[in-house]
């Protein structure tokens, strides 16, 4: 069970906070799971002109429920167009046509680097994760990246075991040195709050705490000494309209109990 705070769950708060970050009129490359839930919520609330792009090649998908995978038939049926997988990566992602990349993570570190490959040593892993998929190039080429991930010491580590997708590398200036064209993970949304890179060091620090969450709790769930940004804010609570839309979206999706 997700922890509850008032009349919404922490997962709902996280999903709504993520949806709010998506601006109407942008094109968003969406990963399955929490990113897909938040992106679909945004399209159904404040951002009806959000273009959802999935790596299966569907551009402008407008599903009436949450897709159950990145290749769910409902994405193709409701898309503006469907293109091949080489085309989605080469023509649409690589040149930087997509404003926002929206990713999940198994591990994320203080510089926003993401691991979805292995926990532990690659040759003898403690946990074998699915791997890269589209994420490395999404993280490199989208205008900016939003990461959505539940905050815990297991996920928020000082240094990821494997860099599947680059955030800010070893710190400020690394993206430029590597020739990565996008601005990297500007926003990390969790069930506790929102993090953003320090403008000088690129280290992730907390900018918002969700209602009822303390800075101590956020620090407790982070594997590096978590700094707070000046003027640390509280995330506005979910509105009734946001909760209604999110719950309707989940209810319309068979076999989905959460996000």
């Amino acid at each position, binding site marked *: 069970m997700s922890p509850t705070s008032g009349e919404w769950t922490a997962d709902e708060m996280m999903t709504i906070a993520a949806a709010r970050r998506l601006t109407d009129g942008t094109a968003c490359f969406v990963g*399955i*799971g929490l990113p897909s839930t938040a992106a679909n919520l945004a399209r159904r609330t404040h951002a009806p002109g959000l273009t959802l792009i999935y*790596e*299966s*090649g*569907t551009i402008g998908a407008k599903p009436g429920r949450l897709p*159950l*995978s*990145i*290749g*769910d*038939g409902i*994405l*193709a049926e409701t898309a503006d*167009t*469907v293109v*091949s*997988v*080489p085309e989605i*990566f*080469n023509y649409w*992602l*690589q040149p930087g046509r997509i404003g926002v990349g929206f990713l999940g993570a198994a591990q994320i570190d203080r510089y926003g680097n993401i691991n979805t*490959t292995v926990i532990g040593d*690659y040759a003898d*892993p403690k946990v*074998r994760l*699915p*791997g*890269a*998929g*589209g*994420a*490395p*190039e999404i993280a*490199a*080429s989208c205008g900016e990246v939003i990461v959505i991930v539940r905050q815990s010491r297991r996920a928020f580590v000082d240094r990821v075991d*494997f*860099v*599947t*997708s*680059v955030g800010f*590398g070893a710190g400020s200036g*690394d*993206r430029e040195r*590597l*020739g*990565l*064209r996008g601005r990297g993970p500007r926003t990390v949304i969790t069930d506790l709050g929102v993090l953003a890179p320090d403008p000088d060091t690129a280290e992730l620090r907390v900018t918002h705490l969700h209602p009822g969450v303390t800075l101590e709790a956020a620090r407790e769930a982070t594997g590096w000494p978590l700094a707070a940004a000046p003027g640390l804010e509280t995330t506005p609570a979910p509105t009734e309209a946001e909760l209604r839309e999110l719950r309707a979206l989940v209810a319309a999706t*068979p*076999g989905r109990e959460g996000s």
Partner: protein
Amino acid sequence: MAEVVPLSDAIERLVHDGDCVALEGFTHLIPFAAAHEIIRQGRTGLTLVRMTPDLIYDQLIGMGCAAKLVFSWGGNPGVGSLHRFRDAVREGTLHLEEHSHAGMANAYVAGASGLPFAVLRGYRGTDLPTVTDTIKPITCPFTGEELTAVPAINPDTGIVHAQRADRAGNVQLWGITGVQKEVVLASRRSLVTVEEVVDTLDPVPGAVVIPSWVVDYVAVAPGGSHPSYTQGYSVRDNAFYSAWDAISRDREKFLAWMSENVLEGSR
């Protein structure tokens, strides 16, 4: 010219122990019937290539068909892990060659294009080049920019599922087309399983036609993409994807399921 033959004949002629075989289909049009025939024929030592080695490769790996896997994302989409795949990794019985989707897609494009390698703006700064020796830096001869090269994928046999073919073996498919065309063109030999063979292929908006003369065999396999789906013919069996987690978690339970549903299944 493609020859229309029974599925078991096609697999017998095309897939041999130790071959490199790619079965593609990006969530949509996954050739499960063909994979089950490979399992029934007991092939071993295969190098299996596939961007998303989901349930179809969990089954092939769990049944001992694979020696090596070339892939970019290995999970049960929307559900979780592939347990037979994870077990094989843990036991060290499966050699991995791991890429990103963009790397694999481009490697297929190079294969289809008759080029030795593909170049992309990818992988830089990630740890993937440290574990996969088929990812190398390359310098643009015009601008000096550092990019990434991946070698072409040219499987011995490429296998895909499609909606339909005509009697001459021209194949038509539509919906999410993934790397279907690329893998057929990149492979030395190919098999397309289809829902049906028709007299004439009626035009469909957005459909891809793969002409008969680049396909070796067409085999009729109605429902051959189950539990994935075939746009216009069947829907994805999401309940099966969820159920697979419990079936595959335990090796004995997995083997019992495969024995009952695949080995003794209809040919």
